[in-house]
């Protein structure tokens, strides 16, 4: 028996809903290793610079370089599975962000503590924006990251680095585990 218009509309609506849900979960799955890698980099960077602040630039430079390298390798692996990924674009985005943070810190004359808060707040904003388009879990991650950073900035005192290692890196790692869940 042919379908009515209502039945056809309901079937198309179901297809659209399922399509959206599937795409969202696929994006989550693809993002898992990136959150794990960058969560580990943040834990490493904030913790090491807390205990050995004199090597701050060395720790962060090596951490970010390692994270970027891992991300490119991970992205290329995912690219082999049929997803779009461009190593040079990822490298360009990383370099652009690093340049932006360096320039902004210089122009605004931010001190170390302010830089340590500014960078995660920027990323929190990026995750919030991504969440609007690609899935609410990214937005939740951004919101929690922003709140944790602000709370630590005003309340953690001399232990802000340790706070950010646990809260900042921790939020990224926990988001990685959360994204893995269906």
């Amino acid at each position, binding site marked *: *028996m*042919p*379908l*009515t*218009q209502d039945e*056809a*509309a309901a*079937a*198309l609506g*179901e*297809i659209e809903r*399922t*399509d959206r*849900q*599937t*795409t969202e*979960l*696929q994006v989550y*799955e693809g993002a898992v290793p990136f959150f794990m890698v960058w969560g580990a980099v943040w834990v490493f960077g904030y913790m090491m610079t807390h205990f050995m602040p004199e090597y701050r630039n060395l720790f962060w430079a090596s951490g970010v370089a390692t994270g970027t390298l891992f991300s490119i390798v991970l992205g290329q692996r995912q690219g082999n*599975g*049929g*997803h779009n990924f461009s190593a040079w674009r990822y490298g360009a985005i990383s370099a652009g962000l690093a340049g932006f943070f360096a320039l902004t810190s210089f122009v605004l004359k931010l001190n170390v503590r302010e830089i340590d808060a500014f960078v995660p707040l920027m990323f929190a904003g990026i995750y919030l924006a991504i969440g609007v388009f690609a899935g609410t879990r990214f937005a939740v991650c951004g919101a929690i990251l922003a709140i944790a950073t602000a709370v630590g900035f005003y309340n953690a005192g001399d232990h802000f680095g340790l706070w950010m290692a646990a809260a900042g890196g921790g939020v990224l790692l926990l988001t990685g585990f959360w994204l893995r869940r*269906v």
Partner: protein
Amino acid sequence: MDQPDEIIHQPLRLKIMAALRALPEADRIEFVRLRAIVNATEGNLGAHITTLEKAGYVKVEKDFHNNRPRTRVSMTKQGRRSFQAYVDYLKDILNPA
């Protein structure tokens, strides 16, 4: 097409096909992930996937990953064509020429 494809038109199979169609071509999805998307029990999902597999619409691959059995499902080219024809059929009902 005067009638809907009865294999695809069943509600759960429609969700399965829609989920598989959302993947990049030749991409596979794990059974457990698919089960969460279509919100079905293991037995029910397995039965409907078998129906789709017999129709040639999906391909089921079983292997071991990290010492655990893994079942992955993908949509065949025939499945993709049939699903597109089904969607076109639905759109024609809503927008008759």
